[in-house]
């Protein structure tokens, strides 16, 4: 990388500022990106990463500061203008059209056509060569994108970026939707891109990833650059965390409290099966215990807890909460019996984004604040308020729409919902997805505290490290089967991956 140090930057950003109404989202961001490098941008949620990306992709126009492109000051006021220069952006939410084919998606907006008549064959051929460049020659250009996995949809999105004369690709948390194997594949693709001289701006929360793929790092905090162009290899992890949070994070996972020997079984799953998804599983979780489900994306772990919860109807088996058998396929029965779920997709499955915070907190319990159907909103608000304060939700204003909160705080809303409910069994599906480092530590502490208070908890996470750090006991799951059960202290990340690899081979 040393020869790159002398290279003049492809993109240079100086003192960028952007303001929305009363909120100063960016207050001076500096960034320089060189051709052929992977430049990581880090920062907590709300630090201004999204605003920075949108400014660089032409979606926002900055108030102050300048953007130099290949040494020339430029101003662009539309995504089309940025694309024209050679800056393509891959947003976190995949922006592919499910009903169109791979090739149609790649050339969306600049179709291969004469006088409005499409050249299907030519487009397919061009798409194939782009996919080959990305090491995915096997992906058929005529396949419908909706039928592809998230990882492959991302490849399509990347091919689209390449289909124009792109020199810089901005990737907003591309690994958020991928499992570990797919992430390695993504890295391979990124290395191929940079080898061709394309620069990548890589946004991620995951420090380990950045260590693997990044060349240099810039850190922003509260809309300001706290570090610009640090070399990945020369910057210790602790230093990065300090730059992002302004404090030292020593031990992320809180210590486990020993489980009482006579702790009663709170959740009993017996021979539960959902044909086409998972084989019969049986296990118990005791009050105060945290059970982790470790497995890769697609291992059907979410399906297992959704079936326990009644959101999917089991084809066989039974679930008991505190000895009481649940009606299969009924969420309201499960909630009534004391099960709570924090779903994987917070925004689409968990929250009513335009409703105020307090109503999101009481979504499972508002009936309690009513007499003969008549709501007592002040009692309801008070109950929500108590949890908002206890969990240090920010902003603490109970009337804010849930949409206005960061990922970590949205996750806290879901925890608060079940705290108001006082449920004895909690199912947490990816409780820290899209949550920044600081808020993660808080959520870990919270989960631990709930367990210490006697709640039985099941945790699912794509990050094996997280499952192992948080849980007392772990079930390793692959392809709808429980491969092993282990004390969380007696297995490590390698052990889990080993099991999964062997399991798939068998």
């Amino acid at each position, binding site marked *: 990388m040393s020869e790159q140090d002398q290279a003049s930057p492809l993109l240079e950003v100086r003192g960028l500022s952007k303001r929305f109404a*009363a*909120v100063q989202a960016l207050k001076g961001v500096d960034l320089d990106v060189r051709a052929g490098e992977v430049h990581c941008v880090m920062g907590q949620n709300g630090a201004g990463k999204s605003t920075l990306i*949108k400014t660089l992709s032409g979606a926002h126009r900055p108030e102050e500061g300048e953007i130099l492109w290949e040494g020339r000051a430029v101003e662009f006021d539309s995504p089309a203008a940025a694309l024209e220069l050679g800056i393509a952006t891959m947003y976190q939410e995949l922006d592919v059209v499910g009903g169109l084919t791979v090739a149609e998606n790649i050339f969306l907006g600049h179709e291969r056509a004469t006088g409005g008549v499409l050249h299907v064959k030519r487009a397919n051929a061009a798409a194939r060569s782009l996919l080959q460049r990305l090491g995915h020659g096997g992906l058929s250009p005529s396949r419908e994108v909706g039928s592809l996995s998230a990882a492959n949809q991302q490849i399509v999105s990347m091919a689209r970026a390449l289909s124009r004369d792109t020199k810089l690709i901005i990737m907003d948390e591309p690994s958020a939707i991928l499992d570990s194997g797919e992430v390695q594949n993504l890295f391979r693709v990124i290395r191929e891109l940079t080898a061709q001289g394309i620069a990548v701006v890589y946004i991620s929360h995951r420090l380990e990833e950045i260590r693997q793929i990044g060349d240099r790092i810039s850190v922003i905090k509260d809309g300001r650059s706290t570090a610009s162009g640090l070399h990945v290899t020369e910057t210790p992890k602790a230093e990065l965390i300090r730059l992002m949070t302004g404090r030292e994070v020593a031990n992320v996972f809180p210590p486990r409290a020993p489980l009482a020997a006579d702790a009663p079984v709170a959740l009993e799953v017996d021979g539960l099966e959902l044909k086409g998804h998972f084989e019969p599983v049986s296990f118990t979780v005791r009050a105060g215990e945290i059970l982790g489900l470790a497995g890769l994306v697609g291992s059907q772990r979410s399906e297992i807890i959704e079936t326990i919860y009644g959101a999917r109807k089991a084809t066989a088996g039974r679930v008991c909460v505190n000895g009481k058998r649940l009606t299969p396929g009924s*969420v309201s029965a499960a*909630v009534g019996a004391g099960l709570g779920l924090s779903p994987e997709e917070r925004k689409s499955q968990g929250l009513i984004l335009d409703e105020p915070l307090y109503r999101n907190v009481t979504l499972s319990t508002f009936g309690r604040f009513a007499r003969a159907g008549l*709501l007592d909103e002040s009692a309801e608000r008070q109950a929500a308020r108590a949890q908002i304060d206890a969990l240090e939700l920010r902003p603490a204003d109970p009337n804010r729409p849930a*949409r206005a909160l960061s990922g970590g705080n949205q996750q806290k809303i879901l925890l608060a919902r079940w705290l108001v409910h006082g449920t004895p069994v909690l199912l947490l599906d990816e409780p820290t997805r899209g949550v920044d480092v600081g808020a993660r530590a808080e959520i870990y502490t919270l989960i631990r505290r709930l367990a210490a208070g006697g709640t039985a908890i099941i945790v699912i996470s794509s990050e094996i490290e997280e499952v192992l750090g948080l849980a007392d006991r772990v079930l390793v799951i692959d392809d709808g089967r429980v491969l092993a059960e282990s004390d969380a202290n007696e297995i490590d990340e390698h052990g889990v991956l080993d099991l999964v690899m062997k399991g798939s081979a068998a």
Partner: protein
Amino acid sequence: MSEQKTPVAERHPSPASSHSAPGGRTSGRNLLHGSGARSLGLVIALAALVAIGLITSGERFLAVENILTILRHASIIGVISIGITFVITAGGIDLSVGSVMGLTTVVASLASVQLAATQSTWLVMVLVALLVGGIAGLVNGVIIAYGNVVAFIATLAMLVAARGLAELISGRRTLIVNNTDFLDFMRADFLGVPVLVWIFALVAAAGWFLLNRTTFGRRTVAIGGNIEASRLAGVKVKRHLVYLYVLAGLAAGIAGLMMMGRTTAGTSTHGLLYELDAIAAVVVGGTLLIGGRGTIMGTVLGVLIFSTLTNVFTQNNMDTSVQALAKGLIIVVAVLLQQRFAARNERRATAKPLKV
């Protein structure tokens, strides 16, 4: 920050009230700052129409008699609109309300029903109309919630079928309502105001209360805001959907009774295209067609705007075709303005712009 908070406070009860008076009353503020603020544009639109009416027709327009005419005209479609405001707030749609209303007038005017009413009480007719409307709504709701049929299709089928059934039952003849007790009640004035208008006012007040003050209303808004999140939080979504369509059917039944009172007849052609007028009034009023936000006050104003418009045109003997054109314009302009407002509101609330 204060600038930023303003729109949020407009949308929802002001944060200050919950701090300073945790057990106190927020309802008054809610009324003023919530739907009230949103309805301001509608009030202005209504005032503009009144001004046009005054300029073109002068004193005649503001005469008590004429105002009561406007209200009477608004009352029947108004009751239907209140019913479907709930369905639309929950993210559904009911296209069948007009023809279900027609069906209720036919069944409630049948000779046998009227005979039974004469022998006992005219309330028999009321009961029959509500039963017919409720059953039609129940069928809609069960097909939508448990049959997983899209509401648009299920209620479109009911629109066609209920009209057909009404024609079969009535033999395409107009059935005369001759129960004098029923007609006396429906055609009476109370405190100088027609009973029809009173019914509209009562239904609107009950609707406001149900939507804003009860668990039923909360479930309705929650389901419209995010049906999956509501289901996973333990809300009995399917059952509630059935209730909502039953509610719309009951409103159609009440409207049918009012129609019978006004026209002294039951016929299968009653309520033709009423569903579209009602949907227009609801949407112009500010209820989101995609669900998650509903306003009864807005619906009432929407209905009043359209009936005032009709009145202005009638007073000036103007072409009904021009009137239809004006209606169309009002719908588009109102929705465009609301979208602007909603976008700005959201932008300020989240301090992030909409996705470009």
